[in-house]
């Protein structure tokens, strides 16, 4: 896709050439959107806030997958397993070891990244379909391990309860600032991210960081090397791209993203077990990526939003469907979720295989070229 810029939009400096957001009005729109999202709890009903929270966490997981599958071309069905790893690490660090959540979150990402490296090792030897199976094995082995190792710590199949993330400030001039409340036990001011309307600020903050990192990975040397591995690995190797190193880097980054998303999910749900995210979720993340558009930074955002909204549509449609078909009682949501997701993904694969992001590019190009071409 050629870069089509509106007429008059020239690069006048190196900074301008590198800029992602090129126009003042684009900055204004972006800041407005962020403001609207951050102030969401003040005007939107709680279910909407909770929904945006879920979308945000899904976007982070899919952004990781996009780097692995979209840019590097390595297909993985293990993203949910690495989310489980991140969730457990953060839950244990905050719950059992008493760390701060904001310290545990990056450590959870790194831990999941290391586990991701282990399951990325087969990518050195096999690719394509065989790699799918190798990552699929992560999807079975990791949840099994959480059920069977260290039952005293991981509590087997029941899983563990995850504490509320908090941050504390010292008492300044006998008052607590920033909406914190005084906690007599600790002697400090504490803010608890207990409800989704409080937790959404963490999700959005992490989402902004993860988007900036993903964006910059994709346009740096690392991203270009990953794309070259995807497009022609032999040529990439001849150009001096170390295939092994870059594939492993891609696996590591994808698993770090998954670990961070898993930690967020665990602290948001306040509970994690081996079933919290599973094979179906890994399939959903792949689906989100394809629906949104592989190998584009807008793709994960659009895809995750659409698919989570479809899930929500399934829960909305479930009661009328159950009323229509009495045999469905109780199973309406369970039926509609996979039905709608599978149908949407199949339609996208047949009719729009390059995803929503590509469609958005076409719309933008058509807008700029009007009235000459469609």
């Amino acid at each position, binding site marked *: 896709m050629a870069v089509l810029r509106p007429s008059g939009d020239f690069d006048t400096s190196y900074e301008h050439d590198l800029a992602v957001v090129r126009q003042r009005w684009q900055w204004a729109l972006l800041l407005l959107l962020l403001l609207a999202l951050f102030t969401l709890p003040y005007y939107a009903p709680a279910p909407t806030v909770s929904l945006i929270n879920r979308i945000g966490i899904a976007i982070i997981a899919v952004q990781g997958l996009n780097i692995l599958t979209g840019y590097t071309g390595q*297909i993985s069905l293990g993203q949910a397993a690495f989310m489980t790893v991140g969730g457990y690490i953060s839950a244990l660090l905050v719950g059992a070891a008493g760390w701060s959540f904001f310290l545990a979150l990056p450590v959870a990402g790194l831990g999941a990244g290391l586990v991701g490296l282990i399951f990325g090792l087969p990518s050195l030897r*096999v690719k*394509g379909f065989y790699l799918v199976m190798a990552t699929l094995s992560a999807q079975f082995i990791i949840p099994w391990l959480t059920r069977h190792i260290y039952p005293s710590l991981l509590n087997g199949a029941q899983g563990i309860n995850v504490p509320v993330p908090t941050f504390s400030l010292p008492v300044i001039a006998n008052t607590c600032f920033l909406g914190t409340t005084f906690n007599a036990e600790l002697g400090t001011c504490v803010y608890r991210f207990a409800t989704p309307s409080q937790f959404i600020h963490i999700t959005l903050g992490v989402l902004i960081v993860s988007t900036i990192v993903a964006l910059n990975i994709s346009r740096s040397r690392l991203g270009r090397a990953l794309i070259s591995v995807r497009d022609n690995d032999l040529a990439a190797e001849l150009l001096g791209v170390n295939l092994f190193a870059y594939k492993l880097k891609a696996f590591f980054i994808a698993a770090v993203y998954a670990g961070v998303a898993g930690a967020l999910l665990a602290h948001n749900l306040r509970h994690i077990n081996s079933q919290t995210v599973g094979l179906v979720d890994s399939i959903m993340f792949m689906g989100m990526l394809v629906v949104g558009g592989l190998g584009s930074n807008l793709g994960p955002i659009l895809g995750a939003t659409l698919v989570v909204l479809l899930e929500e549509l399934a829960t909305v449609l479930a009661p009328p469907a159950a009323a229509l078909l009495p045999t469905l009682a109780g199973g309406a949501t369970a039926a509609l979720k996979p039905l709608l997701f599978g149908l949407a993904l199949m339609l996208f694969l047949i009719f729009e295989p390059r995803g929503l992001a590509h469609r958005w590019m076409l719309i933008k190009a058509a807008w700029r070229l009007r009235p000459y071409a469609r």
Partner: protein
Amino acid sequence: MNWQLLPQFAITGLLNGGPIALMALGIVLVFKSSEVFNFAHGQMLLIGAMAAWWFASPEGMGLPLWAAIIAALAVSVLLGLAIERLTLRPMTGQPLLSIILMTLALGQFLQGLTIFVFGTTQRNFPVIFSVTNPYRITLPLTYNDNPIVVVLRQNLVWSFVIAMICVIVLVLFFQYTRTGLAMRATAENHETAQSVGIRINHVFGISWAIAGVIAAISGILIATASGLDLSLSIVVLAAFPAVLLGGLESIPGAVLGGLIVGLAQGLVGLPNNSFFMGPAAAQAIRNSAEIVPYILLLIVLVIRPDGLFGQKRIERV
């Protein structure tokens, strides 16, 4: 090690491998002809068994069991043909990722459709083989002067026998019929097959139809042994490693892979007296039947990525 029980667990595991081999065969069949790995095979299994239940039960059609099974096989043939025509024909020539995702999406869709039509309740599948009197076989072996007796449930033995009959029928079909020859030619090379007048779209359709029949048979065999509910579509997850173990394109490989997976699953269930591990670890190993196929898979991928019988066509990096 509990040597007394070893033959019992080994033979039970091996017999359990029969249906796994049959599932693996259904996947290999489609892969051989059209190079599509069918992740929706589990859901085809589920729909075949559900259809058989519906035709047989008084809540549905109330047909006699043999008629119900034939009707279910017919439904599965139609399902297989519909899947090929509607979802995979448009994907011809698309990259691997799209095709993998297509069958995954199809699996989700069929899963939702099954719940939509049949609900989530557990069904009592008609019992085909007697459950009350298992076979008792005394092996010509003794351990500590005790004769070793193997107790085998009837459905276990007969499922294995039926699965193996299906395998033999299929192999004969491939070797001795014109259609089988056309399918083998298509598996070898699409363009060459087309150039000698084989309609490869028909061949794809036939292989999906046969895969549907195989899926329905394995679904019925498993449902009659362990009841029928939605978890039937998960059973097939043990067959994916079996396919890779044998090599993606090899029919004897799929059968052997299924048997190896069954045997391994049987052997880890053996009560072991934890002399070199703690009792907790020993217990964990006994519970590891669900991941053993995948551990085998990882080992095979590292040592012999093209499986035991696979062609050396796999792209190494």
